[in-house]
Structure formats: structure tokens, C-alpha cells
């Protein structure tokens, strides 16, 4: 009899303690082909957890971090686990576009807001009943395509070829780039695909070389992006090679070596933060973030992908504080809805990748001229080529 009373008392105590807590679930790709994207995100989340970048006032925040190994099936499994077992209020993550796209159904069904860290526009557009719950911080492939196309036109390039992943990332880029190129009057002479695990892309490269384009865009991410560029250079291609922002990390430079010299790529401003003009809005938060990241993980270790996680936190932090005025965290459904509404109401949040102002039809909130700069690889370093302001 006494045991029952003690048990009840403990249960009530536990329930009382559990109340003032916001739970954030994270599923990211710390292993697998996208690990060079997921590991900096994970490191940033560890810094966030320690309070380095501020914590929302008046409530305890708990993180649950899971690894999905760059596998969409695992990402969905993790999402369901976080929602049902850990009862999280918010999900952040889905490092790659295939993973985030797969997670949409799970979060929409459970009515949990989700801030994605992946690039494809299809993740948040169009804002239908399911994408009502989905937001993202990285620049879309559409936004970056616009930057690439504008740079190509400025250089007088007329014909261009595309060689990209056969995954959702590569396909997304293929579609958006084709659209942007057509709108600007560029001629797309070839559109080839390869798998991130391929050991040879000679056939695709030969097809592209036979069309003699002025420029080639490689739609890949991480270290597997080196293979097509290396094959192009070895087969004697002399035109300008563009990569996407998916390669903006040190591992790409290391594995690419001399083969990736002079590459042009669109990137978030944080990549070349110290070289930005002082009036650029993201310069200050970028330098703060870089200082904190390098203090823990070493000089030169930061990457743009960690920056996306930082931006997600800036948005989430403000949204949590505003949502606390409207609902309590222990009322799961109500707080999740309030959090979603407040994320959508984000206005003028200055992140390391641009200034975020979201709305009912825009769940990204970035403007192209503040969120993208053109970067060139020179002597194994990232050098700012131009901004679009």
C-alpha cells in the first residue's frame, strides 16, 4: 500500500519537473556519404546545447540527437522515434535533401514543426497542407542556381553542361538550374547523372566533352564531387567548372587537391566571412560563430553546414520564447502548433547565411542578394570572388 503512494508521489514529482522543458529532436547524417555535412552540424548542436549561442529564457531545453547515416529510411525511422518516444516539440535536421523529403510525411502526420538543414526547394515549396509544418535554413538550389546563372552570364558564357548526382539533390539542382539557365538565355547542351559511390564517370564526361560547353556545372556534395571534376581535368577540359554549395567544406579541398583549383561555386556568406565587406549583414554573426566553433574544434575547422544549424537555432530560439507566451510545453499539441506559428512569423533574424523573414508562402525567408556570394578556390583556399548586393 505504501509502495503505491510512494510511486504516485514520484510520478507526480516527475511530471511536475518534466513540465517546463522544451524537447528538440535532431536527426542528422553524421556518417555515410554526407558525413562531411552532418558532422559540423552535430558539432554546432553540441555548442548550442552548452549554451554558447544563448538559450531561450524561462525554460529548459533538451536535445535528442540521432544519426541517420545519410539513409532516408533511417531518417524517417529516427523521426518517428523522436516524435513518439521522446515526444519532442520540434525537429531539426535531415542533412540531405532525400532525407528531409522523406521526413515530411512523418512530421506532417504528427503535426510537429520541422526545420530542415537540406537544400532542395521541393522541401518547402509549395506550402501545402504537409509543408505547412516544414521550414528550412539552407539556401535552396533555386536560389543558388540564380547566383550561378547570373555569374555565368556576367562572364559571357553561352553553353553549359550539367553532371550531377542521381539522388534528389542532383535532380533538384538539374531541374532548377535548367529553369534558371533557360530564363537567362543560356543553352544547356548536356545533362548527365552519376552515383555518389561510382568509381568512374568517364562515359558521362566524354559525352559532355563531345558537346564542347563553355562551362560545366557539377551538381554534387561532399567528397564524391571530386571524381567528375578530376575526370574532366584529366581529359583536358579547359572551360570553367562550377560546383554547388554542397562542396563548401575542407574535406573537398583536401581530396580534390590541384584538380579543384580555380573552381567557382556559390556559397553562403559565412564561408568567406572575414573577406566580406563590413556592411554585409551576416558578417558579424558569422565571425562570432566561427570564433566559438574554432575555439572548440580547431582553427579552420568550421564549415557552412554548421552555419545552417546555427541559423536554425537562432530562428528556433526566438520562436520558442514567443511561443511560451501563447502555450505551455507540457501541452504537446498546442505548443507544437504555437511553435510552428512563431517560426513562420520569423522576421529580420540575422543568421550567418543571410537575413530570415518568413511568411505563410515562404518557409525559407532568404533573399538571394544577401544569402549568396561567389567564391573561387585559389591555392586550396576559399576566396571571395564577388557579392550580389
Amino acid at each position, binding site marked *: 500500500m505504501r509502495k503505491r503512494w510512494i510511486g504516485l508521489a514520484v510520478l507526480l514529482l516527475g511530471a511536475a519537473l518534466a513540465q517546463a522543458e522544451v524537447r528538440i529532436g535532431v536527426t542528422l547524417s553524421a556518417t555515410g556519404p554526407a558525413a562531411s555535412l552532418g558532422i559540423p552540424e552535430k558539432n554546432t548542436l553540441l555548442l548550442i546545447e552548452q549554451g554558447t549561442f544563448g538559450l531561450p529564457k524561462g525554460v529548459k531545453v533538451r536535445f535528442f540527437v540521432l544519426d541517420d547515416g545519410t539513409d532516408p529510411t533511417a531518417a524517417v525511422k529516427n523521426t518517428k522515434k523522436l516524435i513518439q518516444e521522446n515526444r519532442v516539440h520540434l525537429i531539426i535536421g535531415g542533412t540531405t535533401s532525400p532525407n528531409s523529403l522523406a521526413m515530411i510525411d512523418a512530421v506532417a502526420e504528427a503535426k510537429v514543426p520541422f526545420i530542415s538543414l537540406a537544400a532542395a526547394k521541393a522541401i518547402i515549396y509549395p506550402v501545402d497542407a504537409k509543408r505547412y509544418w516544414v521550414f528550412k535554413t539552407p539556401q535552396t538550389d533555386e536560389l543558388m542556381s540564380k547566383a550561378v546563372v547570373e555569374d555565368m552570364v556576367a562572364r559571357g558564357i553561352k553553353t553549359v553542361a550539367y553532371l550531377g548526382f542521381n539522388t534528389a539533390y542532383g535532380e533538384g539542382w538539374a531541374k532548377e538550374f535548367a529553369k534558371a539557365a533557360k530564363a537567362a538565355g543560356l543553352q544547356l547542351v548536356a545533362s548527365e547523372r*552519376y552515383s555518389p559511390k561510382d568509381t568512374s564517370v568517364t562515359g558521362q564526361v566524354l*559525352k559532355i566533352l563531345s558537346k564542347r560547353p563553355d562551362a560545366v556545372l557539377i551538381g554534387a556534395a561532399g567528397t564524391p564531387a571530386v571524381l567528375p571534376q578530376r575526370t574532366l581535368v584529366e581529359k583536358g577540359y579547359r572551360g570553367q567548372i562550377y560546383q554547388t554549395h554542397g562542396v563548401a567544406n575542407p574535406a573537398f579541398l583536401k*581530396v580534390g587537391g590541384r584538380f579543384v583549383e580555380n573552381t567557382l561555386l556559390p556559397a553562403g556568406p559565412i564561408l568567406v566571412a572575414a573577406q566580406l565587406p563590413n556592411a554585409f549583414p551576416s558578417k558579424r554573426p558569422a565571425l562570432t560563430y566561427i570564433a566559438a566553433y574554432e575555439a572548440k574544434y580547431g582553427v579552420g575547422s568550421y564549415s557552412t553546414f554548421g552555419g545552417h544549424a546555427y541559423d536554425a537555432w537562432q530562428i528556433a530560439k526566438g520562436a520558442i520564447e514567443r511561443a511560451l507566451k501563447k502555450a505551455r510545453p507540457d501541452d504537446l499539441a498546442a505548443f507544437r502548433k504555437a511553435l510552428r506559428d512563431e517560426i513562420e512569423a520569423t522576421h529580420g533574424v540575422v543568421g550567418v547565411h543571410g537575413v530570415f523573414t518568413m511568411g505563410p508562402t515562404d518557409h525559407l525567408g532568404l533573399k538571394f542578394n544577401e544569402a549568396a556570394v561567389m567564391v573561387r578556390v585559389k591555392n586550396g583556399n576559399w576566396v571571395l570572388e564577388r557579392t550580389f548586393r
Partner: protein
Amino acid sequence: MDPTIFGFLLSDGLISGALYALVALSLVLVFAVTRVILIPMGEWVMYAPLTQAGFLEGRLPATVGLSALLLLVWAVLDRRRGRAPWLLAGWAVGVGLLGLAGVRWPSLAGPIAFLVVLPLGPASFRLFFEPLPQGSVLLYLILAVGLHFVYKGLGLAFFGPDQFRLPALWPGELGVLGLPVPGQGVLLVAAALLAMAGLFLFFTTLYGKALRAAAVNRLGARISGISVREAGRVAFLLATAVGAAAGLLAAPLTNASYDMGFLLGLKGFVAAILGGLVSYPLAVVGGGLVGLLEAFSSFYASAYKEAIVFTLLLPILAWRSLSALTLEEEE
């Protein structure tokens, strides 16, 4: 399609084909002697260049520890067999010393990586397959797939998820009939042909025939004085040697990462099927076919390349089941 492009695709297809042929040869070798379809061979093919990359970066790769550990466990399991445990322990110590030598003299990283990865094959046989002497092919296949997952996970833990770039043994290009062919590619093709010839000749000797007998009829082989256990270990040792050499030769062309091995193993398996999993020359021909098909379909329809290569299995299986080239064996 002009002659130059055709030539490039041909050379690229033959070079990839040589890699698949080497993997196919090791698969056929193991199957012919032990009836095991060695799926983890793909992982060992990648372990060798990744170990080499570790030495080149001045680290001691964890493969050294893994090899030594497996050899020590083998020594403990065989502790009542006379001098065997001492030889095995000595081998384990030797592997450890080789590892230290590799860190100290990185210019020898290639051969040392080869010798470090070599014990993984026979040790895996002794630890995992030998205790199941009466297993069916399906049972061995399930076990092999399980081992594949283990070795892949260990590969990730040891080497990380990124790709590594390795220096070529024969850098630069040769002009072959007016086409630039990478020197490393020539080495790979030569290795495939050498391995095929070597294995073909080996299995015409008495010892080689004895090895095959061990798989055709276990009881009969044992009655004839052939050690089935030793046959399995020798087969695994030879197969790992072929696979590790393939990985070391191919890695400078393709970069190496922990997850590339599985697809290599699968395509090698498709090539081996052409030889019915028993014929070496046909396995090499199969490898060439797979490589060429892959090269040309990546030119014409790059998005469907993988599907086309694996669909090749269907006509091959149809041809094999209709032709009379079968081997009778007692089950």
C-alpha cells in the same frame, strides 16, 4: 560517336572490367573450394588502400589491430594443435611490427598494407565458416552477408566516411593506339590477366585439384587424405591476396572510401556468374563485359547505368541454365 570517344570508352570499360574481373576471380576461387559466396570481399578490397592511406598520413590504421586480434583468437581456438598456436601468435606479432614499420617508412605503405590485410581472409574463414562444415550454400551466404555488415561498419569506424586520394604506382599516361591510357590502368589489366592465368594453372596441378575436390565431395576428399579445413584456409588466403592487390592497384584511379566495396563486390559477382562461379577465364570475360557495358551505358543513358549493369544478370542466368555446362556434385 566518333572513334576517339569509342576508344576512350573502350579503355575505360576494360580498366573497370579488370577490377571487376579480379574481384570475380577471388569470388570464383572461394566458391570453387568452399561453396561460400564471399560478399565481404568487397570490404577487404577497400581495406587495403584505406590502410595504405592511413600509413601515408602517418597514423597506425586500426586494420593492424583487427588482423592481429583475429589471428590471436585463431591461435586460442587452435591451442591444442601442436605448434599452430605459436605460429599464429608469431604471425600476429609480425602484423603488429609491420604496422609500426608502415608508420615509420610510409614509402612502403602499399606492400605493408597488403600484408596487413592478408590475414583477414583465412582468419575469417577459421573463425566463422570452419565451425559450420556441413552448411548449405544458402547458410554460408547469409553468414557472408552478416560479415559484410560487420566489416563495413568496422571500415566506417576505422577510416571515417570520406574518400581518400592515393598516389599511383605508375603515374601519367601511355599512348596506346593514339589514346591516352592511365599507366595505373595498364597495371590493373595486366594484374587481372596474370591472376587469371595463375589461378587457371594452379588448379590444374594436383594440389589445386585437391582443393576443388574438397568442395565437390567433402567425405570423399577426406577419405582421400585431403584436409578440407586447410583447403578452405588456402582458398581464402589466395582470394584475399587477389582482392587486396586489386584494391591497391585500382584505388589511385578511383579514390577509396569505406562504402565503395559493396558495389564492387556485387558487380564482380555478376561477372563471376558468367563463369558459373567455377570458370576463371569466363569470370574474366564476364568482368570485361560488365566493365564495357557500364562504360557505354554511362555514355548513352547515365541515369540508368546501374540498372542496365545488373539487368545483365538475366540473360546470363538464362544462358547458363539452358546450356549443358553444369558440374555434377553430391549434396
